[in-house]
């Protein structure tokens, strides 16, 4: 996703002279060289100084720019948290906060490099919208949206590398604020089941489909705030079982949203939440090992659909 981010932003910045990017010592792996070379006056590396990064972007936005701030997710959000709250949210400035390698993606680096609670934190900040693209296609659409945004900050929660597009020609197109159908359960199913989730973790759902040929629908809830309540109501009406899937804490993320809405709209079916536990857990080899310790795996997801 970081390659996509760099490529799309560089392309958009050619036409849109208001686009700036402020990075805090993002490594060469962050792939920002193209932007840096093409737009010397609109690229700033503030070094290892995230509070400065947010403030600088706020100042640029006050004077009409459309800045993106970009580094690894915990450092773009947690380290300069008060700057995000006061400088961006309170002043309602059009700055896009790009958190790269979100959730448990950097599992090998340990808990200091993970953001298992970022969506929860961001959802509670007034004025801040939360976009969590599930694949490179959605990311591209998000960047286009953010680069036209003139009012209010956006938290853009992205993956790292190697993600592939989830959808095909039959999938919905990305629309801001709308749940996107990736694929549809075949018509003649005994039980109507869907997986609803966001972020690169949705690849698990795709793997289940291709490996085990199970019959279910998949939806991407890429816009977490504002949440698409009207389509959620339709999903409640349509399905017997809803499985939520997210690389994020069980507190304050998609699980919380769906469970609250299910109560509000008196959903009579079943809900199963696959979220991270409210615990700091480490496992350093593969992200899938860590997710397993949190109770998220291909096997567990398979069982949940199979035995629905």
């Amino acid at each position, binding site marked *: 996703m970081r390659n996509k981010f760099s490529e799309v932003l560089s392309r958009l910045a050619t036409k849109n002279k208001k686009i700036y990017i402020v990075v805090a010592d993002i490594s060469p792996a962050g792939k920002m060289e193209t932007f840096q070379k093409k737009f010397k006056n609109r690229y*700033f590396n503030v070094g290892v100084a995230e509070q400065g990064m947010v403030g600088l972007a706020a*100042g640029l936005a*006050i004077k009409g720019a459309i800045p993106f701030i970009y580094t690894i997710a915990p450092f773009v959000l947690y380290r300069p948290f008060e700057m995000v709250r006061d400088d961006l949210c309170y002043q309602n400035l059009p700055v896009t906060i790009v958190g790269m390698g979100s959730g448990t993606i950097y599992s090998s680096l340990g808990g200091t490099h993970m953001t298992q609670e970022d969506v929860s934190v961001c959802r509670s900040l007034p004025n801040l919208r939360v976009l969590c693209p599930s694949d490179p296609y959605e990311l591209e659409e998000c960047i286009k949206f953010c680069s036209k945004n003139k009012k209010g900050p956006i938290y853009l929660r992205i993956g790292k590398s190697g993600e592939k597009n989830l959808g095909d020609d039959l999938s919905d197109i990305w629309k801001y604020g709308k749940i996107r159908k990736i694929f549809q359960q075949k018509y003649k199913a005994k039980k109507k089941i869907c997986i609803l989730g966001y972020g690169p973790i949705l690849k698990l759902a795709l793997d289940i489909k291709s490996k085990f040929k199970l019959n279910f629908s998949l939806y991407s809830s890429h816009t977490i705030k504002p949440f698409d309540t009207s389509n959620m109501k339709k999903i409640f009406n349509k399905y017997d079982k809803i499985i939520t899937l997210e690389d994020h804490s069980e507190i304050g993320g998609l699980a919380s949203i769906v469970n609250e809405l299910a109560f509000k709209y008196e959903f009579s079916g079943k809900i199963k939440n696959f979220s991270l536990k409210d615990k700091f857990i480490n496992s350093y080899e593969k992200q899938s090992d860590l997710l397993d310790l949190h109770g998220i795996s291909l096997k567990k997801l398979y069982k949940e659909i199979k035995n629905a």
Partner: protein
Amino acid sequence: MNLKRIDYKQLKNFSKHYRTKLLKISQNVPAIHVGGSFSCFDILNIIFNVFYRRNKTNFLLSKGHTAIAQYIVLNHKKIIKDKELDLYCKKSGKLGVHPEITTKGILASTGSLGHGLSIAGGISLRENNKLTFVVMSDGELMEGSVWEAVLMISSLKINNIVVIVDYNGLQSSTFSNDTHKTLYPIDKKFKAFGWDSIECDGHNLKNIFTSIKKKKKNRPLAIIAKTIKGYPVTFMMNKPIWHYRSPNENELKIAVKEINEK
């Protein structure tokens, strides 16, 4: 600006007017910062009455708790209306203790210390044809984010910034020297971080003016303006309690008299 053309006598009267006005406002509001406003009024006086031109300068008050001082000066400059100022900290008013970005003449919502300088960096990058003034407090310099900003501004060669530190030597609770002896000398720290830095008397209007005139094009400038919290009221000066306290009726009379006799 031609030095000979500045009417310092008139400017001095402006300072008296600002301080008197603040004390009058203080009489029927729930919250106001008298001490820190009095220490920076002369600095604001010079910036707004001598240097400030809307298409040539930006101004940001990083020590947001003394926004009332900026409101009073902006009111004098007819940017904030009388009836708006009259409603300071009133139910139907829009002006509170800290500055809000939504207020005319205010660039940023400051209040939490250590935010303003980075924001000013961004403003100065985007408007590099203008000179950006930032007023900070010396207590604010205890915030680590300030030094991120100081380092960032010189490293990115953002040279169109003048910081004026209202060096009154007091934080909210006590003398800054009590908690942070090594904060001083301040000018050497700015210099070590690639800025020009000079000290001046923050209650001497001419001295403030000449210090700002020393700004070179190729470097950001930090002026460490030695001030006195509560100046020039004898019973307020250097007394931590006057950070946030308002005078009673009798104190008001004495204070107004002292301000206008000075």
